[in-house]
């Protein structure tokens, strides 16, 4: 499903080079729930941005379904994000002027679905995250947990091959975090590939596999016992 070869992301600060991701290689098969962990500044979010095609690596290659995504143009990467990838951000990143339902509908409309079909599909996604009753609310009328569930519904609404989640519970209380993680587990049970960045050991423990980063390098890559 995903294969990365010698991936590096180097930032320059004056004459100094900061290797946020340093020569990382691994692959993730379909259906796996992977947790990327590490301390703050270890490069886990940067790695996720490269995997999610939100940023371009300095070196290395990312293959998604045997397609070298690093060679794609910006427009084709946007298309791939639309069709194959789902992204859940730490701060939810939902659009403030759209209702919960409309937030989920936008990518579906972009895929070419008619508004009625997009609406039906969005309602199904919102129902899965138990938010159908708040679908006509604007983000400002939803709690943090509800907003994150909108973000999840948006990420799963268009049936992506892989979901990337960047510290999805960082801004949530423990009870809400549990709800969000339960949603992830359920999705994964249905065969959804999930790559989640977290620095909480108790949440990474829920994943099949834990990849730990330190100073941009993979220091451990183990299946969860």
């Amino acid at each position, binding site marked *: 499903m995903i294969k990365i070869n010698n991936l590096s992301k180097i930032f320059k600060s004056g004459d100094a080079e900061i290797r946020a991701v340093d020569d990382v290689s691994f692959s993730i098969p379909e259906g796996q729930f992977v947790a990327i962990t590490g301390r703050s500044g270890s490069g886990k979010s940067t790695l996720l941005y490269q995997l999610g095609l939100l940023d371009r690596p300095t070196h290395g290659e990312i293959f998604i379904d045997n397609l070298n995504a690093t060679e794609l143009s910006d427009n084709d990467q*946007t298309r791939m994000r*639309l069709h194959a990838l789902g992204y859940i951000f730490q701060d939810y*990143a939902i659009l403030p*002027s759209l209702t919960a339902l409309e937030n989920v509908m*936008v*990518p579906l409309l*972009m895929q*070419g679905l008619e508004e009625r079909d997009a609406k039906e599909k969005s309602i199904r996604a919102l129902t899965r995250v138990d938010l159908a009753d708040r679908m006509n609310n*604007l983000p400002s009328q939803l709690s943090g947990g509800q907003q994150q569930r909108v973000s999840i519904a*948006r990420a799963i609404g268009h049936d992506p091959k892989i979901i990337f989640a960047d510290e999805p519970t960082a801004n949530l209380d423990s009870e809400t975090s549990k709800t969000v993680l339960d949603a992830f587990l359920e999705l994964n049970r249905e065969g959804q590939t999930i790559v989640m960045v977290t620095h909480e050991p108790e949440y990474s423990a829920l994943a099949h596999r834990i990849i730990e980063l330190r100073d941009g390098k993979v220091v451990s890559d183990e299946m969860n016992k």
Partner: protein
Amino acid sequence: MPKKQGIFEKLKIDLRVGFFLAKRELQRANKWTTSLIVFVMLLTFLNLVVVSGILVGLIQGSLDQNKKFSSGDVIVSSFLNRDKIDNSQEVIKIVENLPGLRAYSARYTAGGSLQAGYRDVLLKDEKPNSVAGQVSGIDPIKEDGVTNLSSLIVEGSYLEPTDTESIVVGSFWFRKYNKNEFPGLTTFSEDVGLGSRLLLTINGQSKEYTLKGILKSKVNEVDGGMFILDSEFRKLAGRSDYNLNQIAIALLPGTDAKVAKSALVASGVDENGRVQTSEEAIPQFLDQIKTTFSLLGNAISAIGLVVAAITIFIVIFVNAITRRRYIGILKGIGIAPRAIVVSYILQSLLYALIGAIVGSILVFAFLKPFFDANPINFPFSDGILVATVSGTSVRVAILLLATVIAGYIPARIVIKQNTLSAILGR
């Protein structure tokens, strides 16, 4: 990934998503901000249409008055190299049978002088109390039927068919009405007024007349003219051949002056004199001023258009910059940049469209009828608002085009920024 869509399919989706986003943005935007932007667009539209419309209308008003009080809808006059209209009485017969004719006035004209106090002995180097201008011999009833000259009397009264001893003179020759001081200007002394005895001289022949009325308008031909009965003119100027200098023709409402002119030409009138519609008989300088004012109006409109485009640019740019993260998220979830740009263009288009619609209603339902009924009292014309549907449509199209460009550029600038940087706000 699914197969790439065709250009039209992509465009359709971009438009649909752009419309979806734009509609929600406008629905949930601050109502005051939206109203303010629309108000700016309305002012821009009015600047585009009304400023140039008033400038052109200022001259158009003058031309309309020239038509109303002097030339009529169609005018037959002598050829430039001829003194009179040949076979005038034959021409009159043709005119009388012209389809759509409302009224006509046959005029004799010639240069003449009018002297007051001619019995007084002049001192050495003293200037005679006289003026020189165009004298017209008219049938007062027929002339009134065409130009409603009697309505322009500001002192005294209009000529009657029996006024063989009277003259009506334009206000230009009286100090009271003409405050000009330009070199060479001659007016009557201030003691000349109604009842004054004036000696009219045409072609060396003179006769005394009593000043019966003074005419005042904003038409040079009237203000600078002197009017006596046609029978008197013929006697004084020796026009025993009855050949005329002008025939002013007024048409029934709805009759096309060009059609009437064609009918006269088809009847051979153009072999005896020049046949012109009122538009064609416009003095060249007036025509040039009209063109100049039109250019000036367009220049002012162009400045207004640039200001409007910059306004839209700033509005969209500020909107896009402050929503950099919003745009980043949209790109992050796979929304094509084109669709995002379309949403901004649609927003700016809607602002301009509402401004143009409200502006058009204001112009055609209120301002134009108002200025038609209450012309602006300029010193040399009664200015109206010239706004045609076709001209206004062109201006609306220009405004919308400028808006599209002004909406596209800032949206494009912001869209080009790095997606991740936009999302993370760095």
